[in-house]
C-alpha cells in the first residue's frame, strides 16, 4: 500500500520574534525586517506525512506552496526534510489574496496534481492566525476535513483515523479518503529523515531562480530532473483570474492601526511594609478585595 500525500505549507514572516524595527514609522509592518520561515504548524503537518511514508515506503509527498518567488525556500526545506516533490504556485495575479482566494488557487493546483489520497495542512499560519485555508480547500474540492489533528492514527482501506485535540478533551474520528487533515502545533515536531538530502537538493531551483541567478548548468538540470522545482502560474492551473488575488478576495482591509494602549496615571509604590499595608487597606476600604 502506498499513498500520494500533498502537504500545504506557507512561508510566513516570523511574527513571534517581532523586534522594534519591525514596525515602520507610519504604523505598517516592515515585512523585510522579519525573517521568512516555514510556518511552524506546517512542519507538524509535514511530520505526519513523513510518518505515513515511513510506514508505507513508496508513498509520495508533494509540498505545495503559494507565494512569491522566494517561497521556493519552502520547497527546498520540504525536500531536505524528506518530501519527494515540490510545487510553487506563483503569479502576480495571486497577490493580495485573502484566505478564500488562496484556497481557490491551492485547490486548482491540487486538481492539477490530480492523484492524491490525503492533503495535510497546518492548522493555521502565524501571519494571520486564521485557520481557514485548510477547511476552505476541502470545501472547494468537495471532500471531508478533519481539523485540529494531533495524530494520524491509521490510514488505509480508503479511510483515515485521526486523533483531534479539542478545547477540553480529545476526539477520535474516521473519515473516508481523500480528505483534508489540518494539524495542530501540539502534534509531534518535524524530524529531518536523512541529512544527505540536504546535499542532494541544495541546488534544486525553480526555472525563475535559474534565470535570475544565471545558472546555466543545463546538463545537470536535465540529467537530474529532481533538481527542477515545479513552478505554476494562474494559467498553468487553469484558474479564473477573477477568483484569484485581490479581485477574488471578498474581505478588504479598510485600515491598519498601530496598537496603542491608553496609558494611565499610575500610583507608584515601593516594596516596603508601609506602602504595601496602605495599598491593602485602601483596596479593602474600596471593596475591591475582601
Amino acid at each position, binding site marked *: 500500500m502506498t499513498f500520494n500525500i500533498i502537504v500545504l505549507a506557507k512561508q510566513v514572516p516570523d*511574527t*513571534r520574534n*517581532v523586534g522594534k524595527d519591525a514596525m515602520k514609522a507610519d504604523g505598517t*509592518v516592515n515585512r523585510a525586517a522579519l525573517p521568512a520561515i516555514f510556518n511552524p504548524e506546517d512542519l507538524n503537518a509535514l511530520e505526519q506525512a513523513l510518518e505515513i511514508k515511513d510506514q508505507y515506503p513508496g508513498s509520495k509527498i508533494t509540498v505545495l506552496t503559494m507565494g512569491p518567488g522566494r517561497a521556493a525556500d519552502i520547497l527546498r526545506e520540504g525536500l531536505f526534510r524528506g518530501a519527494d516533490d515540490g510545487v510553487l504556485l506563483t503569479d502576480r495575479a495571486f497577490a493580495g489574496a485573502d*484566505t*478564500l482566494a488562496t*484556497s481557490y488557487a491551492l485547490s486548482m493546483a491540487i486538481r492539477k496534481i490530480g492523484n492524491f489520497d490525503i492533503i495535510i495542512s497546518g492548522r493555521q499560519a502565524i*501571519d494571520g*492566525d*486564521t*485557520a*481557514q*485555508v*485548510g*477547511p*476552505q480547500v*476541502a*470545501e*472547494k474540492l468537495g471532500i*471531508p*476535513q478533519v*481539523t*485540529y489533528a494531533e495524530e494520524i492514527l491509521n490510514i488505509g482501506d480508503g479511510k483515515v*483515523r485521526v486523533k483531534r485535540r*479539542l478545547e*477540553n*478533551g*480529545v*476526539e*477520535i*474520528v*474516521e473519515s*473516508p479518503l481523500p480528505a483534508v487533515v489540518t494539524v495542530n502545533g501540539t502534534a509531534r515536531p518535524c524530524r529531518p529523515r536523512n541529512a544527505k538530502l540536504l546535499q542532494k537538493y541544495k541546488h534544486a531551483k525553480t526555472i525563475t531562480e535559474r534565470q535570475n541567478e544565471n545558472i546555466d548548468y543545463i546538463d545537470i538540470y536535465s540529467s537530474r530532473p529532481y533538481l527542477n522545482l515545479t513552478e505554476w502560474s494562474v494559467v498553468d492551473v487553469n484558474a479564473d483570474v477573477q477568483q484569484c488575488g485581490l479581485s477574488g*478576495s471578498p*474581505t*478588504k*482591509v479598510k*485600515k*491598519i*492601526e*498601530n*496598537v496603542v*494602549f491608553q*496609558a*494611565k496615571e*499610575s500610583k*507608584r*509604590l*515601593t*516594596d516596603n511594609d508601609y*506602602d*504595601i*499595608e496602605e*495599598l*491593602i*487597606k485602601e*483596596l479593602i476600604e474600596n471593596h*475591591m*478585595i*475582601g
Partner: protein
Amino acid sequence: MNNVFVYLEIDEGVVADVSLELLTKGRSLANQLGCKLEAIAAGDKLDSIEKQVFPYGVDVLHVFYDSRLSPYTTLPHTSILVNLFKQEKPQICLMGATIIGRDLGPRVSSALGSGLTADCTSLEIGNHEEKKLGKVYENLLYQIRPAFGGNIVAWIVNPDHRPQMATVREGVMKKEIYDPNYKGEIVEHAVSDYVKDTDFVVSIIDRHIEKSKINIKNSPIIVSGGYGVGSKENFQLLYDLADLLGAEVGASRAAVDAGFAEHERQIGQTGVTVHPKVYIACGISGQIQHIAGMQDSSLIISINNDPNAPINSIADYVITGEIEKVIPKMIKYYKKNSK
C-alpha cells in the same frame, strides 16, 4: 431577509457562553441596522434552547433536530448553514472562534463565496468608501482584529459579499440579558431538506471531554503570574494569595510555556480574555498579546522589579520590587486588616 444570524454551540442541551455573548452583540448590531436577530440550533436535546436564548433578544430561532447532528461533525452542520443562508440571505453571521466555529465557519464561507474574519476583538457598523470605484457602502460590519502576532490591528470589511461572517473568542464580548420576557418565533425545519445522508460519512469513534475546573473567565479577582515569577514553586505564592482573596490564578504565555502553570490559565490573545474587578500582574512584562486579554480589568496592580516594564503604563498601582518579597507582605497585611 437580510438579518443578523448567530450559530449556537450547544453541549448537552446547554448553549455555550460564547454563543450567548454573540447574541448580545448580535442584538445590538440588529438594533443599529433595524433588522431581526436570528439564531440557529442544530443537534439533539434542544427542548430548552428557546428559554435560554429568547431573553437575549432572539426574534427567530431556527431549530434542526436530529440525533445525528450531535456531537458536532463538519459536513451536516455546513449543509444546514449553507442551505439556510441561501434562503434567508443574512447580512451578518457570527460564530464562536472555538474549535467548532473555526471548523465550520471557513467551510461555510468557502461554499457561499463570502468573506470570513477570524478572531475579531470588536465589531462595529459603519460606512465604507471604495475611492477607486467612487462608491460608498452603507452600514457594513467592521470586523476588527489583531494581526501580525498582535502587533497591529486590522479593520476588515466585506463590501460585496453576504453574509459578512466573523468569529469571536469566548469572553471577548459581554453577555447581557436583553429582556427576560422577550419572546421570539420558533421555526422547526425538516433536517432532510438540508442535509444529505452522505454528509454523515465522518464518524466519531471515541470522545473524552473533561469539564475544566479552572474558571478564570468569571473570577472577579485574578492573581496572574509571568515568567518573572521564576518557577513552579514560586507560583505557590500566587495560589496562597489567590486563596485568601477568593481569586483565580492566571498566567502569561511565557509562564505557561515554561511549565509554571496549566495552559487553561493563559490570558491574552491566544488564551482567555478576562474582565475582572482586580487584576494583579506578578512578574509580567506586559507584551501586546498579554495586554489584549486583560486591558479591560477595572483595576490593575503590577508587581515588577523593572520600574519601566510596559505593563506599568496601564496599571493603576505599580509596586516596584521582587514578587518573592511583595506577595508575602500582601498576604500578611491582608490577614491583619481584613476581619
